[in-house]
């Protein structure tokens, strides 16, 4: 992700060419490729493998990685690579769903706080402080204790924890937009407050949201796999990364690959989301 500085670049024609080439960030391209492959795996896993992720084969239980099974097999002889490919769907869908919940509720609260009256601002800020006081994992655990395990509840449970971040940013952005010239201009046309808020404040407050969402996707995916790992998400025999890692714990001595590869996939997607998000963030900050 980082480049090591080379001496005397940019002094010659060739040097300038090298500088231009170096400014091109391989890490960002790589991150895009990882996310792209994960998306393909989530939408159309059959394109990447024709092995059935649920096909058990007791004769090949815990087989080491080989030409036939690139990532080895698990205790039931299921192909690990196929399971990882099919597992992308759960992680991405739950992660994206959770971010969507955070963005929607966070934007609503942040906009109401930033553009609304002062008492509303105060109330919402205090409410967000309270939400922050519940540590993320526990908030999700309490929510699932009340509503029961399963993917939809997982999405909401994880989404709740992400609300404060979005709400705070949107609020700050809305406060800036509210004092801007174009909003004052709109006010001189005697437009009603809610229309100014929706037509002028909201679009201008949304700027950093895609960046935050990309960065948040990583932590949402980690959170979702963590809860699945605890057995609170999709149930066996579903191919889900957290669940696969949870199964691997009992066979780490004989089949360490079952505990490594799903985690590699998980980490690669999270790093890719982070790298892309940070790249956008840098570009956004340079423009503003």
């Amino acid at each position, binding site marked *: 992700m*980082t480049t090591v500085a080379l001496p005397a670049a940019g002094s010659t024609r060739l040097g300038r060419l090298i500088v231009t080439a170096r400014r091109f960030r391989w890490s960002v391209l790589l991150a895009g490729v990882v996310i792209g492959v994960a998306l393909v795996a989530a939408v159309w896993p059959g394109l990447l493998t024709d092995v059935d992720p649920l096909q058990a084969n007791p004769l090949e239980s815990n087989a080491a990685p080989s030409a036939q099974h690139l990532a080895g097999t698990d205790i039931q002889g299921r192909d690990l690579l196929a399971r990882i490919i099919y597992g992308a769907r759960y992680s991405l869908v739950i992660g994206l769903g959770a971010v969507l919940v955070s963005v929607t509720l966070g934007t609503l609260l942040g906009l109401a706080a930033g553009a609304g009256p002062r008492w509303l601002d105060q109330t919402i800020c205090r409410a967000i402080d309270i939400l922050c006081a519940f540590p993320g994992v*526990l908030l999700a655990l309490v929510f699932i204790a009340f509503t029961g395990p399963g993917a939809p509840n997982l999405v909401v449970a994880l989404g709740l924890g992400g609300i404060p971040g979005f709400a705070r940013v949107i609020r700050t952005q809305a406060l800036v937009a509210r004092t801007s010239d174009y909003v004052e201009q709109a006010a001189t046309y005697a437009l009603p407050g809610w229309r100014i808020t929706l037509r002028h404040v909201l679009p201008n407050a949304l700027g950093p949201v895609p960046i935050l969402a990309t960065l948040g996707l990583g932590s949402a995916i980690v959170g979702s796999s963590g809860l699945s790992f605890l057995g609170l998400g999709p149930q066996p025999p579903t191919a889900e990364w957290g669940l696969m890692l949870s199964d691997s714990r009992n066979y780490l001595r004989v089949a360490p690959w079952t505990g490594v590869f799903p985690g590699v996939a998980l980490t690669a997607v999270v790093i890719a989301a982070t790298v892309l998000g940070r790249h956008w963030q840098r570009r956004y900050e340079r423009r503003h």
Partner: protein
Amino acid sequence: MPQLAHWSRPATAELAGVVADPPARHRRSGRRLYRLVGARLAQAVFVLWAAITVTFVAVHAMPGDTVSLLLGENRDDPVLRAATIARWGLDQPAWAQYLIYLRRIPSGDLGTSYSLRQPVAELIAQSMVPTFQLAAAGLVAAVVIGFVVAYATTGRLPLLRPAANTLEIVFLSAPPFWLAIVLLAVFSFKLGWFSVIDYRSAAGLVLPAAAIALPMGFYLAQVLRDGIDRALEQPFALTARARGLSWAGVRRRHALRHASLPAITLIGLIAGGLLGGAVICETVFARPGLGQIAVAAVMVKDIPLILGIALVSTFAYIAASTTADLAALILDPRLRAGAKA
């Protein structure tokens, strides 16, 4: 520049703004300090009260019969039903129930876990010990890692910084439970250095604590390093160099001190979140503790137990972050001058 909350360092963006404020008059900062400390304590009490209220509302907002919700699988036991109704005051109006609840929780009466047939406070007190050991070991290790990595990477050794950057992004992105699994596979099964079974001994604490400390430590290092970089750009760094202090001396005696302030706030947040973070770590290493009873409680829908654990963790979080904020206020006069009470 618009305020962009960075995903991995929520506290520092705000704090940086506060720290950057120019120091105002210090003469009256004594009285102002008391006022700020008082305000911060009041805020902590308020959040605590709100957290208790939220759990009360959550229990009562659930559809269906509250007694059955609290009793779980024992909902048909008439004796337990009567006891629960009496304890929660469920035969009284809602405001009376709330007052009963508000009086009960701070006195340590968190109800009874019906899945384990034991008072919740007792259960938590028992499980707290191993969790606290793990959290404390993890926190100490994280602070050591943070300071060592930050100090090493702000020097002029090439390659250290990119190496640390790569490690940072890996440790901060990898799911903690996967990190724990990999540590287990490598150091316990492959190399056989640490036994997985004896969770009581100090050796059994090494891997779980490392699993907690590595991400936290590198996170802390990131914040500290940004702080050191910022401090080194300040005029006083140049002055110190001009006085003949070595580059390492400037970093150690001046920059590190300045950078420690945001780190204190962050350490408070980390410490507060440790109890929650220990949940997953304990599951991987099959250690007894709060995490294990929390997961078990969610599985069997033991509402009093899970709410008790949530309240205790919230209390720990508030206590830790308040302590850190107060420490920062006392250590740095600029915060007193710049902060708006």
